[in-house]
């Protein structure tokens, strides 16, 4: 069914009018109107844009989606943080700001919260959901977030997570996207890291027919440290795209990025990792790596690590690899009597496991182990 752009825009415009009528917070209405105006102006991104060159969302755009959003939960004092969201980034973020169901997690100053904060999203068939989570880890606090996407239907998730890690706070963040293979998932994560603070994230992308994750992380004061690690493991005709920006705007911060991909069948992945080291950001230590395993001749990955350094006193490295399993490792397993198929799966599992084993919460880790093993059709009973 061919749907013209006009029809598509009308479907959102009509639903927006209705949605806005139910918005009880006046200042939020103004922000939503502004965001929807931007969306109407720029529309959804097309492959003509450099940042969307390898990810074509036309199959999503042509669909008709019923907006499924409800009342936000935030207080007036949360508004300034929400207003810092760069919704003009693209059509998705603008639409999220227009329809977003906002919720807030605030970790009070100096507290160490043992049990993790969990939020799980999943849309229903034919529906579009717009979760928007604000996370404020106040000064000196310590906590863990678990963010899960688990739609079981052909849904459209358009999510935004804004994170503020204040001075000397430590935040661990696990993000697991295991939507159904028919689902669309767009998500943006914006992180600001304060003085002496740390942010440690692991991003696992297993699901979705078409998914994209944008990450933008910025150090706002000296002595911050961040880990932005991830794994995408795709089958069939799945497409996943991760675009990340790590911005060293201040001196003496450290960032680590290790993304791995396993691509089966006709799946396709895009990795674009930009690391900026600004003029005054001396003493920066930035390491970035993206390794990919292509398990089939029809799988494809487009990877582009980018390092832009405007300062001499830095320690930086970056690299990307695309390849098959190590022949020597494979041969070693064969000489131990493992059949070739099992040996290949074991090596692939080991490759993915390097990211998964970093996860500190046993229940998530064993879930993911199982998900990976299921994909490989191998029983290790770890």
């Amino acid at each position, binding site marked *: 069914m061919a749907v013209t752009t006009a029809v598509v825009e009308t479907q959102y415009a009509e639903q927006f009018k209705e949605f806005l009528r139910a918005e009880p917070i006046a200042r939020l209405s103004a922000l939503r109107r502004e965001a929807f105006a931007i969306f109407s102006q720029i529309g959804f991104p097309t492959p003509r844009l450099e940042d969307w060159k390898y990810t074509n969302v036309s199959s999503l755009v042509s669909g008709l989606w019923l907006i499924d959003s409800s009342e936000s939960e935030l207080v007036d004092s949360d508004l300034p943080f929400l207003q810092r969201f760069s919704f003009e980034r693209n059509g998705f973020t603008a639409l999220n700001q227009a329809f977003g169901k906002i919720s807030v997690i605030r970790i009070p100053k100096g507290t160490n919260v043992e049990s993790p904060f969990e939020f799980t999203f999943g849309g229903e068939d034919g529906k579009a959901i717009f979760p928007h989570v604000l996370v404020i880890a106040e000064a000196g606090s310590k906590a863990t977030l678990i963010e899960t996407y688990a739609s079981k239907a052909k849904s459209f998730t358009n999510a935004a997570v804004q994170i503020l890690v204040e001075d000397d706070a430590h935040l661990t963040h696990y993000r697991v996207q295991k939507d159904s293979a028919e689902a669309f998932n767009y998500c943006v994560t914006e992180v600001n890291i304060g003085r002496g603070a740390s942010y440690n994230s692991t991003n696992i992308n297993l699901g979705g027919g078409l998914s994209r994750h944008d990450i933008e992380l910025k150090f706002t004061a000296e002595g911050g440290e961040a880990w932005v690690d991830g794994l995408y493991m795709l089958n069939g005709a799945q497409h996943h795209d991760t675009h990340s920006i790590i911005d060293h705007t201040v001196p003496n911060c450290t960032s680590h990025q290790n993304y791995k991909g396993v691509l089966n069948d006709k799946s396709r992945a895009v990795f674009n990792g930009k690391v900026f080291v600004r003029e005054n950001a001396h003493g920066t230590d930035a390491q970035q790596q993206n390794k990919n395993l292509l398990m089939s001749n029809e799988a494809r990955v487009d990877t582009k690590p980018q390092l832009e350094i405007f300062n001499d006193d830095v320690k930086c490295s970056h690299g990307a690899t695309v390849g098959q399993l*190590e*022949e*020597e*490792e494979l*041969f*070693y*397993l*064969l*000489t*131990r*009597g*493992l*059949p*070739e198929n*099992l*040996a290949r799966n*074991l*090596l692939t*599992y*080991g*490759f*993915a*496991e*390097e990211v998964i*084993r970093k996860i500190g919460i046993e229940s998530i880790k064993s879930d993911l182990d199982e998900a990976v093993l299921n994909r490989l059709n191998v029983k*290790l*009973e*770890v």
Partner: protein
Amino acid sequence: MLLEVKDLHAGIDGKEILKGLNLQVSVGEVHAIMGPNGSGKSTLSKVLAGHPSYQVISGSVLYEGKDLLEFEPDERARAGLFMAFQYPVEVPGVSNSQFLRLAYNEKMKHLGEEELDPLEFNDHLKEKA
């Protein structure tokens, strides 16, 4: 005769390294092969184990009377021809116990015996240790 290598010519990347090697090993015998660097000791072991980078040009290898060169490396290992690596490979992300159990169970399957689950295998390891 357990292993019988007859007039074996083999090499790597089109370069012939073994030029007509003969060797007979009977059950219960221990053989040590010695020679200077580059004389083909590693090549012989890799050819026998079935390394894909090495090519057999001519000659034959019989193992328990069967044509060894017809078998895949994992079939050779399960049949009892085993190669100890000078530099064993570390497989990232895979634990020793997982790896040992998988290898053990493949051998058991080959012998038509029962496979062990992780708990049973753990007990088995303790007995051996």
